[in-house]
């Protein structure tokens, strides 16, 4: 263009241009950080999901204990990722990057609360979850890399921590109920008739809890209510079936039934 030179004359060292150069740096830094957090969140999601799959193997594994130990190791790996998140967020307002990390944290809540339920048959509290997300510097190197950047910090500050928000906790727990439903149906299929009743009791408590919260929470929470209700219905129906079919069993056969069942299966195993 023959008039291009006109505007080239704007002084590239003017105050405005200098300011915008600094804005460029600031924005790029922020976006880069956001992007790193999204990637960490994806990693957290995948590993949490795999932990949940692992935990579902408990009913069929020779020993639940082993799987619990393995799941603990997997969750430790996830927590190492969360530690990286916490490090990225050091000195930042976590809410600013919340959208980047929220999906991962919710999935972690789901995984950790599932494991906790299996171990204790109770609901892990938000406080308990957050307690596990306080990280100390693990080795010299970490301490050193940290110190120069902020040498005015006291010894005490050599920890990073991350707080799961109540809403992310609720959303994670809402998803947990889906896993509990799966566990319930699995249990029935495996001839375990106690777990379903325990689960229905527990799920009902969670459902009542969510009903109590109702629409006072954000929309995402209300949105999960329907699925939660479906899961509860599945569990209640499973218990109903157990009860109805149990009504037919002659009392004196009760012991008999199960021993026979075991026999058959052993026999079948021999065949296969």
């Amino acid at each position, binding site marked *: 263009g023959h008039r291009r030179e006109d505007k080239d004359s704007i002084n590239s060292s003017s105050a405005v241009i200098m300011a915008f150069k600094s804005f460029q740096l600031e924005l790029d830094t922020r976006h880069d950080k956001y992007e790193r957090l999204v990637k960490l969140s994806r990693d957290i999601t995948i590993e949490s999901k795999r932990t949940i799959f692992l935990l579902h193997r408990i009913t069929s594994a020779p020993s639940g204990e082993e799987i619990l130990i393995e799941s603990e190791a997997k969750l430790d790996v996830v927590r190492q990722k969360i530690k990286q998140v916490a490090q990225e967020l050091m000195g930042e307002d976590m809410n600013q990057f919340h959208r980047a990390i929220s999906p991962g944290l919710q999935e972690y809540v789901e995984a950790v609360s599932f494991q906790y339920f299996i171990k204790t048959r109770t609901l892990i509290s938000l406080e308990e979850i957050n307690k596990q997300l306080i990280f100390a510097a693990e080795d010299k190197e970490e301490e050193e890399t940290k110190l120069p950047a902020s040498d005015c910090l006291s010894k005490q500050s050599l920890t990073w921590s991350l707080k799961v928000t109540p809403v992310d906790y609720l959303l994670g727990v809402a998803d947990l109920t889906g896993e509990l439903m799966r566990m319930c149906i699995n249990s029935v299929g495996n001839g375990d008739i106690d777990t379903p009743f325990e689960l*229905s*009791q527990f799920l*009902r408590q969670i*459902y*009542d809890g969510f*009903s*109590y919260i*109702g*629409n*006072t929470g954000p929309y995402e929470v209300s949105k999960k209510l329907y699925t939660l209700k479906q899961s509860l*219905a599945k569990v*209640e*129906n499973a*218990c*109903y079936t157990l*009860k*109805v079919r149990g*009504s*037919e069993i002659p009392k004196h056969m009760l012991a008999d039934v199960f021993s026979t069942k075991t026999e058959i299966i052993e026999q079948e195993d021999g065949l296969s």
Partner: protein
Amino acid sequence: MSVSEMFINLQGVLTVDQDIREDIRKVVQTLEQTAREILTVLQGVHQGSGFQDIPKKCQKAREHFGTVRTQLASLKIKFPADQYYRFHEHWRFVLQRLVFLAAFVVYLETETLVTREAVTEILGIEAERERGFHLDIEDYLSGVLTLASELSRLAVNSVTAGDYSRPLRISAFINELDSGFRLLNLKNDSLRKRYDGLKYDVKKIEEVVYDLSIRGLNKEATDGAGGEK
């Protein structure tokens, strides 16, 4: 009158309207809170252990309805009586919820369908539109449909709790409801959609009754029921 004077007047009108809405919203929030509390009380009946205390739970729910009446009384004075439908959307949802809860209590107490008039009494509002803050017919019907779905759940949980007679009675009740709704000529709207869900409730309960029948548990139920009721 200058344009700016005109607009100052108009803003006056808008402000009144916005204030009314704000006031309504606040009362509705308290209503929702009470409704949630009643729900929590009544949900107890699904627990195995909850079947004994039904009267006590109903009693407790009835007390909460006292609060509801006060709150609705406070709601109805927040706006001119002839503008009910102007602000209808604000309380529509919670009113449907309250209808359901009242109908649930009445069902648990007497195993009958609460009439529209009876609901308005429980809620402390008018039965007739002309007389003031009333209950829109579609909101009443919507609440009743929620009851049907709650009862189908109750039928399932009754069996789990070992009560084999209740599902039979629920089945008869829901069949009656279904016949009733078939008399209505509903528009193609949200109520119609919700009504389409009723047939699943009917089917679910029929299957429960079937499960009991085939195992002879329905006889057991009716045998015992005579004494129980």
